[in-house]
C-alpha cells in the first residue's frame, strides 16, 4: 500500500491541471484525460491484488465510516439509548432505535474515535462489560417490541484492562452469545471494519452475517498471532494471510453470508457509495427475515451455529 502515496500525488496533480484548465486560453483536457486514464489503471492494478494485510490496514483506516456514520446516514430517526442500568454508559458500544427504509429497527454499533480525545472517551472502540450489557438490554427491548436488530461490528476487541476483567468481561460476552442465539427477532450483523475476536462476536451472532469487502473478522489480530505463534512481531503480514480473516475468504469458507462491495481503494474513498451498498443489503436481508416465521427463524439460526465447525470423522476404533 506504500504505492497509495503515488496515486495521491497523481490525483493532486490532476486537480492542479483542472484548476489551470479553467483559466482562459488553457486547454489541457486531453492531457487531463490521459492522466486520469493512467490513474485509473494504476489504481486498479494497485487494489486488484490487495494483500490480506493491506485489507487489515484498510479495515482499520481512520477515515473509514464508523458505526455512528452509518446510523446517521443510512438510517432515519436514529435515537440513541444510553446506559446499562447499573454501571455506566460505554461510549465504545452504541445502541439505539432507528428506522431502516422507514421501518423500525434496533441498532447496535461498535464505535471508534477519530481524535485522541474521542478515542480516550471511547477506549479506542473497545467495549467494556457495561457496553456488552447495554447491548444485552437493547436485545431484550428489541425482542419485546419485535424489532429486527442490526449490529454493526467494528472493534479491535473487548477492552483488555483491569476494569474489564474486574467486571467479568468474559461473562458479559458469554451472556450476549447465549441471548443472541435464541432471540426471537431477526438479527443482521454487518462487519464494517475490524471484527476483533470475542469482543466482536459478542454482538456478532445473527441470522445473516455480512462483511464489507475490506473488513476483517478474526479469532486474533495478526499482530497477536505473530507474537504467539511465530514469536516474531514482524511476521504480521504472514499471520494476516494465514488467519483467513478477509471477507472474501470467509465467504468461501461459508462462515459469512455476503460480501458488501466497497469503492476501489476502500470505504474511506467514497462514503456515499458505501452507505448505499450497505443500506441496500441491510434492507434486503431484513425484509427476507421479516417474512420468516419467528419459530423457523430461531431454528435456522440455531442450526447454523450448531453446525459450525470443520473436523474429520473417524471410523470408530
Amino acid at each position, binding site marked *: 500500500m506504500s504505492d497509495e502515496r503515488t496515486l495521491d500525488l497523481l490525483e493532486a496533480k490532476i486537480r492542479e491541471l483542472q484548476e489551470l484548465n479553467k483559466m482562459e486560453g488553457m486547454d489541457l483536457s486531453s492531457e487531463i484525460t490521459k492522466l486520469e486514464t493512467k490513474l485509473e489503471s494504476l489504481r486498479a492494478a494497485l487494489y486488484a491484488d490487495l494483500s490480506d494485510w493491506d485489507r487489515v490496514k484498510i479495515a482499520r483506516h481512520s477515515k473509514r465510516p464508523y458505526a455512528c456514520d452509518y446510523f446517521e446516514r443510512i438510517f432515519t430517526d436514529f435515537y440513541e439509548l444510553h446506559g446499562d442500568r447499573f454501571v455506566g454508559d460505554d461510549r465504545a458500544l452504541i445502541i439505539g432505535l432507528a428506522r431502516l427504509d422507514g421501518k423500525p429497527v434496533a441498532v447496535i454499533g461498535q464505535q471508534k474515535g477519530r481524535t485522541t480525545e474521542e478515542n480516550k472517551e471511547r477506549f479506542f472502540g473497545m467495549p467494556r462489560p457495561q457496553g456488552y450489557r447495554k447491548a444485552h438490554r437493547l436485545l431484550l427491548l428489541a425482542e419485546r417490541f419485535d424489532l429486527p436488530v442490526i449490529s454493526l461490528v467494528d472493534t479491535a476487541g473487548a477492552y483488555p484492562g483491569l476494569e474489564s476483567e474486574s467486571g467479568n468481561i*468474559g461473562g458479559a460476552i*458469554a451472556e450476549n452469545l447465549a441471548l443472541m*442465539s435464541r432471540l426471537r427477532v431477526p438479527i443482521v450483523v454487518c462487519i464494517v471494519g475490524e471484527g476483533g475476536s470475542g469482543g466482536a*462476536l*459478542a454482538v456478532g451472532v445473527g441470522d445473516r452475517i455480512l462483511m464489507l469487502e475490506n473488513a476483517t473478522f478474526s479469532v486474533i489480530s495478526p499482530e*497477536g498471532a505473530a507474537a504467539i505463534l511465530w514469536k516474531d512481531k514482524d511476521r504480521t503480514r504472514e499471520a494476516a494471510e494465514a*488467519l483467513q480473516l478477509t471477507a472474501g475468504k470467509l465467504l468461501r469458507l461459508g462462515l459469512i453470508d455476503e460480501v458488501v462491495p466497497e469503492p476501489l481503494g476502500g470505504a474511506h474513498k467514497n462514503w456515499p457509495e458505501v452507505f448505499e451498498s450497505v443500506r441496500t443489503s441491510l434492507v434486503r436481508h431484513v425484509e427476507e427475515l421479516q417474512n420468516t416465521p419467528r419459530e423457523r427463524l430461531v431454528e435456522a439460526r440455531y442450526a447454523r451455529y450448531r453446525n459450525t465447525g470443520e473436523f*474429520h470423522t473417524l471410523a470408530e476404533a
Partner: protein
Amino acid sequence: MPIFKDREYLRVELERSQDESLWMQCKACGELVFKRRVRENNNICPNCGEYFFLTAPERIESLIDEGSFVDISKPIVAGDPLAFIDSKSYPERIEVAQERTGLPSAILIAEAKMGEIPVVMGVMDFRFVGGSMGSVVGEQICYGMEQAAERKTPFILISSSGGARIQEGMYALMQMAKTAAVRERLARDAVPFISVMAYPTTGGVQASVASLGDIIIAERGALIGFAGRRVIRDTTGEDLPANFQTDAFAFQHGFIDRVVNRENLREELIHVIRFFQSTEKRES
C-alpha cells in the same frame, strides 16, 4: 485402577508410569517427592500442597465412581480448514499432541457415575495444544450437552483451556457462539449444567460456555479471565493486582459460586448433582 478400558490414552498413561523416574522435584517447594505419592494425592504435592496439572484421564479418575467410565466422545479429530502453518503445520501439531497425550483431542466426553448418579462429563486436557477450543472441542462440548439432555442427566464441564484454537481461525471463534447456543437449549430443557473452571480457564472458553453454568465452581488455583496479562499490559500499561485473575479475584468480583479444593471436588459435585437429581420440571 481399571476405569480406563480402551483407547490410546491408556497406553500413554502406562508408558508414563513406567518410563518415568520414581521421584520428581516440586516446582513450588523444590522438595523431591515420591511420584507415586503425588499421583495418589490427586497430583498435589504432599509436601507443600501445590497443585500439578491433572490430565483429562487423571481428572476423570479422580472424580467418578470406580469402573463407571464410558468414553462417549464423538469419533472426530481436527481438520485443517485453513491449511495453517506456523512453526509447524497444524496437522503435525495435532499429531504431536495426540502422540504425547494419547488423546484424540483436547477433550474427553465421558458417561459415568458420581455417587451412583449418572452424569455426562466433558473434561479438557491442557496438554493438548493448551486445551484450546477449535471445532472438535466445540463439537464435543455440544455433543456432550446433547447427550446429557437425552439421558436427562447433569452435564459437567471441567475447563482447562487457554482459549480459542488460533490455528483454526474463525472456525475456532465460532465455537464460542456454538457452545453458547447449545447451552441455551440445555437451559430451556432444564438440564443442570455445572461448570468447573480449572487452571486455566481463559479467553474464548471463559467468554462462552464456561461462564454459563447454572453453578460455576473454580478449582483452587484456577486462573480465570478473558484477556491475558501480557495483552493487558501491552495495551494499557496498567499495574495489575497480585491476585489478578486468580480464583480469589473471580470470587471477590462475583463471577463464580465457589472455590473448591481439588481433594473436595468430587464430594462437592456429588452434593450438587444429588440436589438437582431431586428436582424435576413440573408440567403446569
